[in-house]
């Protein structure tokens, strides 16, 4: 490896770092002021790219000049900034006081809506952008050719950092942003017009995301998958740098850029794993990130109230539970093949959602990546059957073990954090697992996954397999419900209600949370294993963010405050999805809008409504 090569590699790392920083700086600014982690930040980035690939070529028709190219880029950024203002006025304003979980879910609702809107406006085909006039050539560096546009990007990152520094230190608006990031109450006390400050910050943050997207168009085509891939990276940058810290974001972006540029030489397939290792290492040593401040993240509990007083079933509840189980067992006798399939999936998702609410509602541990353990269970079972040649029975045994083991591994780091940091770390771990399944093509089949995951001969019919699932899922839910009512479940609620009190009566909070995370991962893994055999295949969507969000939507719909709400939520959610998804091209739009509506007007879910009716 010669010097020229190393220099060029490092330069391309810096170029990626610049782009990443511009996007992440907007995310971290918005978080600093509003304390909302805005999932839709990735959507702003994507919109910046789409608007730019529309506007810039149109401007270049007039004159192929660099001035018009960058005018187009700036127009795109400003347009996205205006969309950010809209989002603040219409949605975020109503979210400042709700629990973090609801904020995350509502902004994810926006992600889903934007995805369908983008498909509708720009179509499903990726759109390549024009190259930048004046920067299309290569530059000779130590005998290596390096694109001039990348050099330009290297300059633009520090330039944005400098401009932001000037803004934050030399203007009243910027000084208010810094004050709000440090101390919310103080700004309120000063009588500053908070609404204006928040709206202005959203403009700035969204415009930075839009700028990041628009600047990408000579390098990558605008595509409808840009949002989720960038948001994970931006999350990682802000978490490593420290939420709310712009210089921290810059430092983290440079570190990650270099790590990826050189990591790709050593481990070409798993650069994401390296990034994750960096993040895990930073969070263990400095839980609030490199330049972050603890108060910023530890301000509010993730949930105001999770599962409240757990009561045993009364007569009405026993009757309902008995009828539900009877109905599930009767489906293969009376239902057609399609109904059996839906009922099997409802049982599987009920178990997955129940295990998630065991963490969220009972433990106050807001996991945003629960699909990871579901998917890893599915992959363990599927790969053992197809590649390992094992029959279904041992593979189904391996699924919860795999889910539990990975949950134990990831959970070791997760339980060291709390609140929003915890949620983002669970998300990052899920993305790592997703990336490994996606990229490790030889073993996992990559994007296509693996087919031929069929049950043993005796369980091959839909009807018999339904009973296999029913036995496993119902027994697992009953067992997990037992744990909720047992001392272990009570201990988790105690730690959720008051960590300080729990510690003072002798409870090792971290260890109990770790055990809970492992247990829930095991249950999700079992659900994943059952799912693999019901589908006959496995693929990376089983670990992807959208499935994690589906699980969260299920428990939200069912009601986080109740023990059995998750089961009702899973049944309702999956049935609605199954009925409406084939009927519409805008399923995601509807789902996103429904999530937002749930958060805003119906936060206690179905079981909450039931409890209100009973009382």
């Amino acid at each position, binding site marked *: 490896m010669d010097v020229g090569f190393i220099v060029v590699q490092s330069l391309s790392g810096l170029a990626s770092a610049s782009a990443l920083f511009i996007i992440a700086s907007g995310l971290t600014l918005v978080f600093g002021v509003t304390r909302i982690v805005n999932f839709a930040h990735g959507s702003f980035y994507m919109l910046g790219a789409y608007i730019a690939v529309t506007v810039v070529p149109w401007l270049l028709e007039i004159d192929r000049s660099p001035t018009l190219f960058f005018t187009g880029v700036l127009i795109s950024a400003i347009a996205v900034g205006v969309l950010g203002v809209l989002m603040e006025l219409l949605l975020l304003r109503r979210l400042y006081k709700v629990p973090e979980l609801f904020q995350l879910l509502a902004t994810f609702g926006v992600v889903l809506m934007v995805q369908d809107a983008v498909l509708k406006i720009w179509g499903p085909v990726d759109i390549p952008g024009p190259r930048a006039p004046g920067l299309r050539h290569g530059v000779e560096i130590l005998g290596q050719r390096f694109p001039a546009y990348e050099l330009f990007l290297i300059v633009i990152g520090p330039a944005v950092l400098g401009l932001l520094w000037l803004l934050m230190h030399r203007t009243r608006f910027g000084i208010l942003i810094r004050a709000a990031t440090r101390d919310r109450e103080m700004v309120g006390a000063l009588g500053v017009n908070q609404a204006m400050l928040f709206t202005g910050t959203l403009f700035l943050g969204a415009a930075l995301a839009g700028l990041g997207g628009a600047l990408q168009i000579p390098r990558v085509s605008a595509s409808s998958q840009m949002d989720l891939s960038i948001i994970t990276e931006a999350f990682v940058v802000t978490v490593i740098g420290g939420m709310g810290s712009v210089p921290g974001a810059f430092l983290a972006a440079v570190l990650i850029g270099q790590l990826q540029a050189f990591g790709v030489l050593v481990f070409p397939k798993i650069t994401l794993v390296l990034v994750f290792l960096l993040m895990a290492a930073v969070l263990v040593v400095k839980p609030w990130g490199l330049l972050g401040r603890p108060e910023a993240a530890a301000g509010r509990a993730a949930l105001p109230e999770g599962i*409240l*007083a757990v009561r045993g079933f009364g007569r009405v509840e026993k009757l309902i539970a008995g009828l539900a189980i009877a109905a599930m067992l009767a489906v293969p006798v009376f239902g057609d093949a399609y109904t059996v399939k839906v009922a099997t999936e409802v049982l599987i998702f009920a178990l997955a959602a129940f295990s998630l609410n065991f963490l969220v509602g009972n433990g106050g541990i807001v996991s945003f990546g629960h699909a990871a353990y579901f998917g890893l269970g599915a992959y363990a079972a599927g790969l053992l059957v197809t590649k390992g040649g094992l029959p279904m029975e041992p593979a189904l045994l391996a699924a919860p073990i795999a889910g539990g083991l990975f949950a134990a591994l990831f959970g070791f780091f997760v339980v060291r954090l709390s609140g929003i940091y915890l949620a983002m770390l669970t998300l990052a771990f899920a993305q790592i697992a997703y990336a490994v399944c996606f990229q490790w093509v030889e073993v996992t089949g990559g994007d296509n996954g693996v087919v031929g995951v069929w049950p043993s001969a005796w369980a091959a019919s839909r009807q018999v397999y339904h009973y296999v699932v029913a036995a496993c899922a119902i027994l697992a839910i009953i067992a997990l419900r037992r744990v909720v009512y*047992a*001392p272990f479940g009570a201990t988790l609620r105690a730690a959720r209600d008051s960590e300080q009190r729990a510690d003072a*009566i002798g409870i090792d909070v971290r260890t109990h949370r770790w055990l809970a995370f492992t247990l829930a991962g095991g249950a999700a893994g079992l659900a994943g294993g059952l799912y693999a055999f019901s589908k006959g295949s496995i693929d990376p969507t089983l670990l992807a963010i959208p499935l994690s969000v589906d699980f969260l939507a299920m428990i939200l719909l069912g009601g986080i405050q109740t023990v059995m709400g998750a089961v009702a939520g899973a049944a309702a959610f999956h049935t609605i999805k199954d009925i409406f998804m084939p009927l519409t091209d805008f399923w995601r739009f509807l789902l996103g809008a429904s999530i937002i509506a749930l958060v805003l007007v119906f936060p206690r879910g179905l079981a909450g409504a039931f409890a209100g009716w009973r009382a």
Partner: protein
Amino acid sequence: MTLLAVEGLNKAFGGVVAARDVTFALSAGEMLAIIGPNGAGKSTTFNMVGGQLRPDTGRVVLAGQDITGQPPRQVCRMGVGRTFQVAQTFLSMSVVGNVQMALIAHHGRTRDMVADAARLYRDDALALLARVGMEGEADRPIGELAYGDVKRVELAIALAAAPRLLLMDEPTAGMAPRERAALMQLTADIARGGGIGVLFTEHDMDAVFAHADRILVLVRGEVIAEGTPEEVRANPEVQRVYLGTSGHKAALRARRAAHG
């Protein structure tokens, strides 16, 4: 016999010295009050004894064992129960559920995944609630109680670990005067009856002078006086720096009350 020995504790937050060379000792069955103006370092001292804060230097020795820098859960297992300046309870649970939870922890059953937590140690918990006069409210959600009653329940929670030492940071803050006197009397009875050492802070001078065996005066992180209520009351520096005339009157009132 010395139950708790605190030797040369120091703690600084950035530039603020919250505790400077704090040294004192406490015997079983004794009630030691720490008094001092707001920001004197009382809570900081409590938190260094209870394990919530790690001292910069110095030692905390409980019954001959060094517990400096141990986490709260460890300190609890060594026989220290505590209440907080702002009451800390399990809001989703009933009154008796809170005490049962403390008993479950005390008996090391927190990892039990089978038993029914609602039935476990219920009688013991009711007995503890009876000791603090709260058995009548056992099945109400703790969030519904008046703050004074929450403080009593917190005492029952602290007692669940069968402590040798009770740490009570402003146990009567936010209570009506009559409730205060009752809670302090209750605490004194429990301490003397069970040979439990009590370290407490209190703004209400009546309560301090009526119940403390000894008083420690803390000002800006430093112990400026220590002794029996009489000695502290007579100390000119204490009168000047802290008690002032109102404190002096309180002392006189308390003496009159105590001696009829």
